[in-house]
């Protein structure tokens, strides 16, 4: 509960400061080690200045353990002793910052305003003393630091002065600076942890909301889309790359879809089964084999088409190799107009009279089935042709390779044979020489 308030408050403050505080963001994401319970905007501005330039006069506002809260702020949010961001309203003019009394943190007029913060930033940027004065003004109530604060103010205001007391003061100031910085580091890293946690929470919520959003996306056809991919491959291998490209095409289609549409895969031909089963085994609904054993006939295709029709799919996409020439075959995706789409665009058929014996809806269904079977037949034939052409060129290459290999091996064989003969001869000669 405590944590939530803190986080909320910090976040709100952060949002107010965000548009102009790039440097603040930079320091939050920097890796500081020491935790610190409180961080004021002003001190963060000061620290930002530190990151970018020389060390300014420090501000000690954050060291106040429990500063009193402006009445209206108290009513607006319940604050606790945890992390506390205090936004300061400096007076409008930078010059006025020099007087600590010019800033009243705890007065009724202390409301955060972007303009005021902008001015503060600018002031902090312009004069290092202003930041110190700012901080000093924050620390107006802290009696603990009272001896130091005026010194701060004096250091802040009197820049360039080099009196011995000032030097001694500076030394003291520097040690305090270190402590201050360390405390700030603690705070910043705490903030960082909180922000990281918030980021993870938001990421998880985003995932949930995104899935809802996608589910609610209206499909152009209106009702649920279920698609069937019919991948046509060959039964036997040694046919070049025709099967590999089909498998690749189907994988590409599934990847493009990203699982949005419930998809089923129908495989016609043996060679598509193993590769598809490895990757999309769950989506395979049916697989036909020995389709191309004999030349494809229309009744055979009718059987396949009947199987397709017995399943309820809104879209059917044929993936097969189109035969362009004996050298060239390319994979194509051919969507078959779905029955629902056909029925919707039935107005095209208005000018056609239909046979009076049957009602037009039945004719439509029959026409669709006929169209499906015809296109499937075409796809199977094209793929068979592509398969044969690819096999021809693949086997042509293979036979040429084998001829080359044979020639090389013949040379090697000759060389080995000759080496053997030479060895035998030399042995004989040596033997003869030793005898004679």
């Amino acid at each position, binding site marked *: 509960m405590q944590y939530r308030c803190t986080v909320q408050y910090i976040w709100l403050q952060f949002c107010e400061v965000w548009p102009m505080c790039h440097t603040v963001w930079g320091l939050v994401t920097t890796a500081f080690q020491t935790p610190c319970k409180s961080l004021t905007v002003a001190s963060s501005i000061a620290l930002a200045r530190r990151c970018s330039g020389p060390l300014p006069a420090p501000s000690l506002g954050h060291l106040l353990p429990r500063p009193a809260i402006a009445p209206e702020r108290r009513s607006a949010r319940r604050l606790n002793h945890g992390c506390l961001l205090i936004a300061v309203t400096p007076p409008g003019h930078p010059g006025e910052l020099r007087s600590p009394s010019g800033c009243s943190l705890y007065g009724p007029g202390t409301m955060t305003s972007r303009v005021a913060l902008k001015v503060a930033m600018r002031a902090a940027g312009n004069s290092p003393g202003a930041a110190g004065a700012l901080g000093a003004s924050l620390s107006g109530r802290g009696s603990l630091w009272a001896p130091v604060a005026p010194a701060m103010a004096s250091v802040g205001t009197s820049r360039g002065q080099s009196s011995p007391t000032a030097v001694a003061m500076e030394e003291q100031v520097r040690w305090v600076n270190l402590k201050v910085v360390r405390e700030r580091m603690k705070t910043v890293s705490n903030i960082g942890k909180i922000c990281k946690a918030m980021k993870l929470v938001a990421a998880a919520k985003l995932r949930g909301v995104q899935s809802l959003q996608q589910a609610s996306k209206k499909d152009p056809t209106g009702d649920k889309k279920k698609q069937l991919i019919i991948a046509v491959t060959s039964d036997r291998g040694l046919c070049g790359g025709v099967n590999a490209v089909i498998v690749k095409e189907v994988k590409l289609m599934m990847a493009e879809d990203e699982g949005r549409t419930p998809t089923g895969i129908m495989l016609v031909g043996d060679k598509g089964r193993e590769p598809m089963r490895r990757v999309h085994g769950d989506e395979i609904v049916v697989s036909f084999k020995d389709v191309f054993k004999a030349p494809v006939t229309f009744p055979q295709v009718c059987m396949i088409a009947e199987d397709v029709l017995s399943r309820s799919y809104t879209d059917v996409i044929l993936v097969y190799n189109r035969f362009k020439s004996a050298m060239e075959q390319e994979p194509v995706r051919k969507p078959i107009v779905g029955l629902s789409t056909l029925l919707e665009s039935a107005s095209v058929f208005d000018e056609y009279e239909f046979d009076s*014996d049957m009602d037009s809806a039945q004719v439509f269904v029959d026409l669709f089935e006929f169209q499906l079977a015809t296109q499937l037949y075409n796809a199977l034939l094209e793929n068979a042709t592509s398969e044969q052409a690819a096999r021809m060129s693949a086997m042509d290459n293979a036979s040429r390779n084998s001829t080359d290999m044979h020639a090389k091996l013949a040379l090697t064989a000759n060389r080995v044979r000759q080496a053997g003969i030479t060895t035998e001869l030399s042995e004989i000669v040596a033997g003869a020489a030793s005898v004679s």
Partner: protein
Amino acid sequence: MLRQVAIRASAAARSAAGPAAAAQRRHLAEAAVAADKLHFNFLLPGGAIQKDAAVDMVLVPASSGVMGILPRHAPTVAQLRPGVVEVHADGAKEKYFVSSGFAFVHKERTDVCAVAAAPLADLDAAAVTQGVADAQAAMAAAKNDTEKAEAQIGLDTYTAMRSALAMA
């Protein structure tokens, strides 16, 4: 419907002499035909019997009866039942037995898309009679509705073939 088609096609194939060629269907060019002739395409899955032919009249066995298509016929979609397609061109009549399919009469051309077709002369009378007997036996032996329907389809087709041969 496709099962019907398949059975009819196989019945026609069994009785016919020549096998259907497995060729590609090609995109039909809109050839210019004289106004008083019918631009006619007779298409099978495996090829075309007639393509871009200019004929006088075509009789098709539509499901509601025999339909005659003359030039400038109103656009029609007709489903075919087993029967004879007659093509009248220049006084000559060519008869083909078709198992089933669709006939599309467009404004500028007519397509008869048959699943299986054979010239009537190629039908063997003896095989047809045998087929009728087989179908009747199958009908009697049918155990469930599917088998009965299949047998009925076979019977219809063979009977149509028989009457086609009888009329020829």
